[in-house]
């Protein structure tokens, strides 16, 4: 019975793969010139890299919702961690000395790299998400040597930092309908400055969200 079920599953999966391959071999060349449209409006967007322009200007609404999803995951994980009861993780007293020395060298470099990635997003691959990820990695390294831990329940500063990116982005996106334009329209002259401000707030928030997701304490630590 189990063999039959496994055989049927395998057959269904292989059929699906064949269907996907046939569909992809059969795709027509794209005739919606999204790349061309993006290139033409790139000058108005405030940045000179097309992917950043798409993420933070042309499809800013999607990025706003993405930050919302990140926040939801952070809230859920923090709530679950606060309810849990597990054993603590290494503290400064029992951290490895080689790791500690390496982290002392690495963390300043990572903070600098994060700042560069944030600024470079306007003209080459980079931007808020990459910078936030590097910053979160630096924070996780600090947590591994016991230097600092994201506190549970989150402190006021932590909560403010988590919400800052979403609130700044939401304010800028909602400012346009309040003055009569379509949602998420940036004023032409301030587009690049606005994008930089949004990206800075996003970097901080994304770093804190990733830290909460992967480095939060268990509730047992607080009792």
């Amino acid at each position: 019975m189990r063999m039959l079920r496994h055989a049927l599953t395998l057959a269904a999966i292989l059929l699906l793969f064949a269907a996907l391959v046939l569909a992809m071999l059969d795709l027509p060349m794209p005739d919606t010139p999204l790349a061309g449209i993006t290139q033409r409006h790139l000058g108005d967007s405030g940045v000179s890299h097309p992917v950043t322009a798409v993420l933070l200007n042309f499809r800013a609404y999607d990025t706003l919702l993405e930050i919302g999803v990140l926040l939801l995951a952070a809230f859920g994980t923090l709530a679950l961690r606060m309810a849990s009861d597990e054993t603590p993780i290494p503290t400064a007293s029992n951290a490895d000395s080689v790791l500690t020395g390496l982290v002392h060298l690495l963390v300043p470099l990572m903070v600098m790299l994060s700042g560069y990635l944030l600024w470079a997003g306007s003209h080459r691959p980079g931007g808020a998400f990459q910078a936030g990820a590097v910053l979160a990695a630096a924070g996780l390294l600090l947590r591994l040597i016991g230097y600092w831990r994201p506190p549970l329940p989150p402190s006021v500063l932590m909560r403010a930092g988590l919400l800052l990116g979403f609130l700044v982005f939401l304010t800028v996106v909602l400012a346009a309908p309040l003055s009569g334009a379509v949602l998420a329209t940036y004023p032409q002259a301030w587009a690049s400055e606005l994008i930089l401000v949004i990206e800075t707030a996003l970097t901080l928030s994304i770093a804190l969200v990733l830290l909460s997701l992967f480095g939060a304490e268990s509730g047992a630590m607080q009792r």
Partner: protein
Amino acid sequence: MSIELLYALTGAALFVLGLHALVVHAHLLRKILAFNIMGSGIFLVLVGLAQRSGITDPVAQALVLTGIVVAVSASALALALMRRLYALSGTITLDESD
């Protein structure tokens, strides 16, 4: 067959492999990993198909960037849920009963 189409077909293969592992395994961690592999396959399909014409499509690449971030946070939430389930019930293998 162009190189971009090869990327897309590899993405389809990853998706199908992940789907098989998701269906077959009962261990929750393996299911979460299989889900991640399915997501990576879909990203590969998007990026491969975005390069078929002369210029790469920036909208598809932005979609993949968004998708990667959402997949990472969803995986973290899934892992937190799995650990809580383990703490509450003592097992992270789904029942094999039909």
